[in-house]
């Protein structure tokens, strides 16, 4: 690969990239992000590869990452020259020959595509490119376009603009999507102060959880005294059920790298670090590949774009501590020390990594930067809500039909995310609450479903944006049990440095455990609230400072459930094992015997075609009978 030193070099690479993105030959793309691979994308890829080779087909087989709809993985996209792009969902290796048959024939008979794409957006450059001229072919008109799929309809993609569309290993394809043009513009035509001003104007706020204004942070770091400054990318995403940053690192690593180079130039830094958790092997691999390639082409290293600006990036792999997502703990870990936070009374923009001015932003924040630079801060500020501009990526998980990653304008009502994009609750059950902001966020109840999702509104509701995890819960979720789950997670992730977090969270967990076990006492709710306040006030870092949130918010919105556990020894959602009992409704039981066979402890007895009985003394309350009964004859109270 030749060096990219001039605008002409960029244009050449962009041309090559466009020819690879929308080639004049048949192209098949397999979604190979972690979500795809977990669903069998590797097998699908292998089968396609073998079949193409055996049949000696003139087909380009390439890899891409994920466009977000993880519940439909493995996704395979087929692009025939001059035709709409077709996406096939839930592909299997078995279906590979049939798919290739219909690709060769140009039909859609054997396997129906999930959706079609008539055009591809080029967010950074602005506008879209159509895959074909004129109207869509008649045989494809019955296939919904991607914009007609409810999951995608309300999405606006900026941070995840290239995920699932480009090959993450192809620098040319990234450049074809407008990549590194922002960097060129910044280095050759903008003063650092102007870049900072544009990022301030964009209103971009940190996507990692704090929501601090990115531009102001850059300015503080730029103004801080010191010869050597660092820029850091926080890729230590550790919230259970959250994988926004993983998706960006896997699917579009150059967007993070480009954002960091622009930031470094604006701040006056020449060294950057990406701290990424080692539990993300594909993210580490794709980032390392992209960094090596950028370095080879001269986009990292000395004299970038022949402007005299030097900058390079090193990857540092995290060893699995959740607390290392906290900026000062992350910096301690980068220095080789144990991942423990320190007080932030002296800001890291002045005294950060190795006591030098350091600017840390998270993956999603960095990925937004190139788009802001080319399209302008004003453009970004025009998207989203007033004090929360732009878009936010959320991972939609839990009791929701469309599990996946979504990017929506800030201020999108929660209702739209849950019911339209998310497709509602499986099994027609009732939506109960959503935990936003990760384990230390809060539970937002059904009555606040109209809430516009942005930094300030979530905080007002007793939760927070966090990094963007959304765990949806249905009416079969016990809120005390959920609070216990999150507190238990945080207890095990507390670094143990300060007393309120180390000792306080585990005592809260003990009390919650007792409440769930039917051993709650009068006054426990008040004690939990009191402890929460003192832990929030007294903790050293944001982990302890926000850990009680799930308890406080569940008490705020679901106090009756706590009271039922404590005073009536009853779990209204029928979850807490110590407080529930299974029985069989004699009127409904047909005596089919399925539950008897499913019961792992053989506590169900009964003759064929006669009502069965559960021996409560032996029952371990696993719920296997409940799940298996087709006649709703098992009741739980």
């Amino acid at each position, binding site marked *: 690969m030749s060096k990219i030193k001039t605008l002409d070099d960029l244009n050449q690479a962009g041309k090559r990239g466009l020819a690879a993105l929308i080639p004049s030959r048949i192209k098949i793309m397999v979604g190979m992000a972690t979500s795809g691979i977990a669903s069998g994308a590797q097998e699908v890829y292998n089968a396609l590869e073998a079949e193409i080779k055996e049949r000696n087909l003139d087909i380009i087989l390439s890899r891409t990452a994920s466009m977000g709809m993880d519940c439909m993985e493995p996704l395979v996209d087929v692009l025939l020259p001059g035709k709409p792009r077709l996406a096939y969902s839930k592909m299997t290796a078995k279906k590979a020959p049939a798919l290739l048959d219909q690709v060769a024939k140009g039909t859609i008979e054997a396997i129906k595509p999930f959706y079609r794409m008539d055009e591809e957006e080029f967010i950074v450059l602005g506008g879209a490119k159509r895959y074909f001229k004129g109207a869509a072919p008649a045989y494809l008109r019955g296939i919904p376009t991607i914009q007609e799929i409810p999951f995608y309809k309300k999405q606006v993609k900026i941070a995840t603009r290239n995920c699932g569309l480009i090959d993450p290993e192809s620098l040319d394809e990234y450049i074809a999507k407008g990549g590194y043009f922002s960097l060129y513009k910044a280095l050759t035509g903008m003063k650092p102060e102007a870049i900072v001003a544009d990022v301030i104007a964009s209103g971009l706020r940190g996507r990692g959880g704090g929501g601090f204004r990115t531009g102001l942070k850059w300015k503080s770091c730029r103004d801080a005294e010191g010869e050597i400054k660092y820029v850091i990318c926080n890729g230590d995403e550790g919230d259970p059920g959250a994988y926004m940053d993983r998706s960006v690192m896997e699917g579009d690593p150059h967007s993070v790298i480009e954002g960091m180079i622009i930031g470094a130039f604006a701040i006056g830094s020449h060294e950057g670090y990406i701290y990424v958790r080692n539990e993300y092997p594909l993210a580490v691999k794709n980032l390392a590949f992209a960094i090596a390639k950028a370095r080879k082409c001269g986009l990292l290293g000395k004299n970038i774009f022949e402007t005299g600006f030097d900058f390079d990036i090193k990857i540092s792999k995290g060893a699995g501590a959740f607390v290392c997502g906290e900026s000062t703990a992350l910096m301690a870990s980068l220095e080789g020390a144990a991942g423990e936070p320190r007080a932030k009374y002296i800001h890291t923009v002045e005294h950060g990594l190795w006591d030098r001015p350091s600017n840390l932003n998270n993956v999603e924040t960095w990925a937004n930067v190139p788009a802001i630079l080319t399209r302008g801060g004003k453009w970004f500020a025009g998207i989203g809500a007033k004090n929360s501009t732009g878009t936010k990526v959320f991972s939609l998980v839990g009791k929701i039909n469309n599990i996946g990653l979504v990017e929506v304008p800030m201020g999108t009502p929660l209702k739209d995310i849950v019911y339209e994009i998310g497709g509602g609750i499986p099994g027609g059950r009732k939506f109960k609450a959503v935990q936003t902001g990760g384990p230390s966020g809060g539970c937002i109840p059904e009555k606040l479903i109209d809430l516009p999702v942005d930094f300030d509104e979530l905080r007002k509701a007793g939760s927070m944006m966090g990094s963007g995890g959304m765990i949806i819960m249905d009416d079969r979720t016990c809120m005390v049990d959920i609070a216990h789950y999150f507190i238990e997670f945080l207890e095990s992730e507390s*670094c143990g440095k300060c007393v309120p977090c180390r000792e306080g969270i585990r005592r809260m967990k003990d009390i919650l455990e007792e409440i769930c076990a039917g051993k709650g*006492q009068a006054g426990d709710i008040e004690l939990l609230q009191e402890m929460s306040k003192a832990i929030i006030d007294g*903790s050293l870092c944001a982990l302890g400072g926000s850990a009680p949130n799930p308890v406080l918010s569940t008490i705020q919105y679901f106090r009756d459930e706590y009271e039922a556990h404590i005073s009536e020894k009853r779990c209204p959602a029928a979850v807490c094992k110590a407080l529930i009992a299974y029985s069989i409704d004699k009127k409904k039981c047909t005596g089919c015997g399925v539950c008897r066979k499913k019961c792992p402890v053989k506590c169900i007895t009964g003759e064929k075609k006669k009502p069965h009985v559960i021996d409560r003394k032996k029952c371990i309350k696993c719920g296997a009978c409940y799940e298996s009964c087709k006649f709703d004859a098992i009741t739980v109270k």
Partner: protein
Amino acid sequence: MAKFIIDGKKIEAENGATVLDAARENGIEIPTLCTHDEVGSAGACRLCVVEVKQGNRAKIVASCLYPAEDGIAVDTKSERVMAVRRLVLQLLLARCPGSGLIQDLAEQMGVKPEPRFTADTDKGKCILCRLCVRTCEQVVGVSAIGFSFRGADKTVGTPFHENSQVCIGCGACAYICPTGHIEMETTKTGDSRTIWGRTFKMATCKVCGRYFAPEDQLKYISRTAGVPLENLAVCISCR
């Protein structure tokens, strides 16, 4: 100089001083467990929290680390402050029920044990104040002890809890430990002492003949200070 207010009293402090420094300088007492003149502050025990008001904003900070700033108003005994201190002491009472230091502090502040907290039996008297670890690193300079694990499982000790080859047996950790958790045993004759599972042979004073320091410690001082070992063969009393 930073001009500000603590508990209604106008105070001046040198630039770079912490709120705790300034308070103590002016006779205002703030309890602490993890700060020490020799090794500085860690911000770990959170007993020294105070409420800092700046304009309309009020926040709880650790006074041992918070820099004295112009125009702030510090309240060392606000309700929020006392709630944190109370919880910290209740948590430490439950963690280290055998610690006299914690019991005394709790009594002084009128804090009673929280009956909902079951007392621990496996933590000894260690409150994880980190003074021992910092002393070993910053004062002694050997870093023979450190932390293992995290959260409530965090413990102080030698790496992998094996006998440390860098420990010199000086006992500074036991000396600085505020609760008496770190045990150092000396034989009746005084010819050896055991700490962190390792037994150290003691050297005798060339003059009085009494055991006065571990041989390893003398070797360490000789090596780091560049003093011949024979110059270190006399105890302090005989020097």
